[in-house]
């Protein structure tokens, strides 16, 4: 039983260390907030409702990709009275022209690193001359 004198403080220290990230987040004034996105000016609607796009844009992009690349089906999608080409560079990037002000903000805050831009280059880079 005399080992308890060592075990209990050590256990407390371990628990504290493990709980630190949680405690750190609970500090007052540290409420997490969703990243602020710069929406394209002049455009009111996306291909799908914002809620769907927020959660499942990757599903939509995968469906477009499978349809265009695998089956050669390039039928444009229509939404809200407009038709859109099934293309990441040709449709999405036209409106969301600033990757750093839109895509990157959520991806960075969530620690997601999609590889899309390795190949689907970004017009912003052209404008800013970055490479």
């Amino acid at each position, binding site marked *: 039983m005399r080992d308890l004198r060592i075990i209990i403080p050590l256990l407390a220290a371990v628990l504290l260390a493990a709980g630190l990230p949680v405690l750190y987040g609970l500090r007052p004034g540290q409420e997490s907030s969703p990243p602020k996105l710069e929406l394209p000016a002049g455009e009111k609607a996306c291909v799908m409702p914002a809620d769907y796009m927020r959660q499942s844009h990757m599903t939509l992009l995968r469906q477009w990709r499978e349809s265009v690349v*695998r089956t050669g089906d*390039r039928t444009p999608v229509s939404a809200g009275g407009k038709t859109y080409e099934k293309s990441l560079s040709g449709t999405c990037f036209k409106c969301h022209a600033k990757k750093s002000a839109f895509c990157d903000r959520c991806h960075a805050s969530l620690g997601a690193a999609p*590889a899309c831009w390795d*190949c689907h280059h970004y017009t912003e880079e*052209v404008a800013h001359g970055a490479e």
Partner: protein
Amino acid sequence: MELNRRDLLRRAFRTGLALFGSAAAFDVVRGDLLAAGVPKAAAPRRAMAVDIARCIAAGDCRECITACHKGHNVPSIADTKREIKWIWKETFERAFPDEAHEFTRQDLKGKEVMTLCNHCENPPCVRVCPTGATWKREDGIVMMDMHRCIGCRYCMAACPYGSRSFNWSDPARVLPVKAANPGYPRRTKGVVEKCSFCDELADTGKLPLCVTACKTGALIFGDLNDAGSDVRKALAGRYALRRKPSLGTGPSVFYLV
């Protein structure tokens, strides 16, 4: 009733046969029904004819290569072991090793002809691809899906025409985005690429970039299933070679001599 070992096995075998047999029969019937219900439109069979004489007469012309490589963001790398090529020039002897001999006609001997992916009828690259990243479309185009390519290079080993290139380094280093065509994706390090017969244009009824760029009319593109197409007309009037036909790949690129 006591179930002995023999009866158990017997029953299990019969149940299995009934289950799998009916499932297989259902598949066959359903397949037939599906096939019967949808009248299938005859898919085109895309092919190209290269007029060797006209191409050779144009000398050092590289218009088709420039147009293709610019349009598809193919970087130019001088090192032949690392170069990326979709359409390129090859000497007659190298393109047609079975046809060349000591007394090859002077107008062909040592002359360069256009070579590109042959979009084979029976593509060996497709057979060896472990991920389905390359496959043959209904219209005969041998496609690449860069998203699925794992860079194993089996297809490069399988292709007897050297039509496939591997990205040994990030092409972005050679082809900065400023110089790239924003309408077409680049590739990433570790994927294999090749000519796509401009599938994106073929789907919208347009001619490939190389054919549009060719000033001498040496490149002819069309549908082999359409007897009135330019390709069929060219093939009807002229003798045509195919590269290494003895391998049984069935190239869709014809060379008019």
